[in-house]
């Protein structure tokens, strides 16, 4: 990995290591953990949206499936949490693989519609199959334990999430710098040109779709264990939109943008509660203004201001 990508990763690691000094109570730690979970999903989703140029308005569905796989297999059937997490990830991977081929042939808004549909169908199934999922009321999830180690409390979870986020960012940066990453960017830039040069565009699109879905599923499993309770709203349309918004807000095609977007849009609603009734209006206005004046998102726009020629 080239050094200009390594430096921000080091910065991210230092920030993650020092942050607990500032997060003095569980409320703040909790926000950081939720932001971290969102960031991991967004790093994966950004590979799809930002690098491969394929939109998905349904990723919360995969997140929800992972979460419910853990909830049901562990709490109802007594599986070990790690096995449930892996089973969920494999199932979501297979599902994503099965739908990817026909869906990723679609372009632009048609792809948006198809992914939106998949997400909504998953969410409705989770809401309706009350016998298995507990329906709209949700269901409790046992805590995460592996080899006698039990993940419990905000402090422990903070380090788990921080570690996973760093791994996800590192892996994403590596992927982008690899031949596969170059192929992906070629698919985004000029799909037909890439195809004529012998790039298996369909294959790469499917690969990154499955990868991002599996990342969402694993994060869903872990966050279900962390929260101890899961409802179908974790998988609904709003969550999907929220995830895409985080990616675009932070900056498409920027791994750190995805992290920044996830953190900002997780923290922002907490700050906006000060506006009380006007909260939604202020949030909507911020989203619109940011996208109108920084259409490329926060991180690419700001980093272009600081270092005009370098790409982050």
């Amino acid at each position, binding site marked *: 990995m080239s050094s200009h990508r390594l430096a921000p990763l080091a910065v991210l690691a230092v920030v993650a290591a020092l942050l607990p000094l500032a997060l003095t109570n569980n409320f703040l730690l909790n926000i950081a953990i939720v932001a971290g979970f969102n960031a991991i999903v967004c790093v994966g989703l950004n590979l799809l949206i930002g690098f491969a140029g394929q939109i998905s308005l349904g990723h919360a569905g995969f997140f929800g499936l992972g979460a419910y796989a853990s909830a049901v297999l562990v709490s109802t059937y007594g599986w070990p949490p790690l096995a449930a997490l892996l089973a969920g990830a494999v199932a979501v991977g297979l599902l994503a693989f099965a739908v990817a081929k026909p869906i990723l042939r679609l372009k632009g808004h*048609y792809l948006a519609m*198809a992914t939106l549909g998949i997400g909504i169908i998953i969410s409705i199934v989770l809401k309706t199959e009350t016998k298995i999922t507990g329906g709209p009321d949700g269901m409790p999830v046992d805590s995460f334990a592996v080899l006698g180690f039990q993940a419990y409390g905000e402090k422990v979870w903070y380090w788990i999430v921080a570690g996973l986020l760093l791994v996800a960012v590192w892996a994403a940066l590596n992927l982008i710098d690899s031949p596969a990453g170059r192929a992906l960017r070629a698919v985004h830039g000029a799909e037909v040109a890439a195809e004529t040069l012998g790039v298996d565009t369909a294959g790469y699109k499917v690969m990154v779709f499955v990868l991002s879905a599996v990342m969402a599923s694993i994060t869903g499993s872990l966050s279900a264990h962390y929260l101890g309770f899961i409802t179908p709203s974790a998988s609904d349309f709003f969550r999907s939109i929220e995830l*895409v918004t985080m990616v675009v807000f932070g900056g*498409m095609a920027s791994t750190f943008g995805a992290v920044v977007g996830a953190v900002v849009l997780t923290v922002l609603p907490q700050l906006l509660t000060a506006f009380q009734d006007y909260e*939604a209006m202020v949030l909507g206005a911020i*989203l619109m203004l940011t996208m109108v004046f920084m259409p490329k998102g926060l991180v690419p726009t700001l980093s272009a201001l600081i270092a005009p020629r370098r790409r982050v």
Partner: protein
Amino acid sequence: MKPAKFLAPSPQPLSREGRGALSGDAITMGADFLQFLVSGITVGAIYALAGLGFAIIYNASTVINFAQGEFIMIGGMSASTLTAAGVPLPLAILAGCAVAMLGGVLLAKFAIEKARNASVVTLIIITIGASIFLRGLAEVVWGKEFHQLASFSGDTPILLLGAAILPQSLWVVGVALVLILVIGFFFTRTLAGKAMLATSYNRLAAQLVGVNVRKVVLAAFALSAALGAVGGAVVTPITFSSSEMGIMLGLKGFTAAVLGGLGNGLGAVVGGLIVGIAEALSAGYLSSAYKDAVAFVIILLVLVFMPNGLFGKRGTERV
């Protein structure tokens, strides 16, 4: 604590479209079917109007306006709250239209126009921001509760071959039909309409022959907003109105527009009716819980075999 949610989700308000159904014993299977068909056409008419709104804006600007549902909401809320305050119904509907059109024009002028060269996803997020803003505004102005609106000509059902048809259903279908015909006339017979159509075929060429394409975009947003607002007003006696009524209606409108083939107005209308009828039939015969999923199953199946919708132009990719 739950994960931070900034899009204010909450359970979908349930529509009361099944209200007219009679109890099972008294009616035959044919009457059952007719009953479901009527309620399907009623909802379908609203989806058709919403879908037409998506198509008009898409044609003028290639933007998918996720705030389309909020125009419906504004129409419904204005009609119900203004009539409750003593304003005559026609005036209340017109006021709702005016408010929605103002919202649409402001959105087009200050957000969409400024971000013209942004990517598809960025434009989607802008319209989503607009819909969150409008929903928030509606909650501040009208509150979060449901609002009622009296049916336009009473609640006595009309019996037809064993099915009970609400007079309001006829209003919904009739108004939608008139609006669709007016829009059709506008696009095929008037200069302004033809200019808008020309812009959708070829923006640059339209500009070269003197069409003010900026005004076309503004007009498209105003027109879609008005369509949505009227639709919201006529459907409110059946479904009630709330600040969140636009969410699902907007999504179904998008489904209708994509099903018919993006940018095809007639396609959107047909798409809306297909979605509405399929929903009502599956709610009646299969499961009401999966009613909302039907639209999305249909759209997925259609897109797998017809990637440009039922009546969409087959696109060739320019390199």
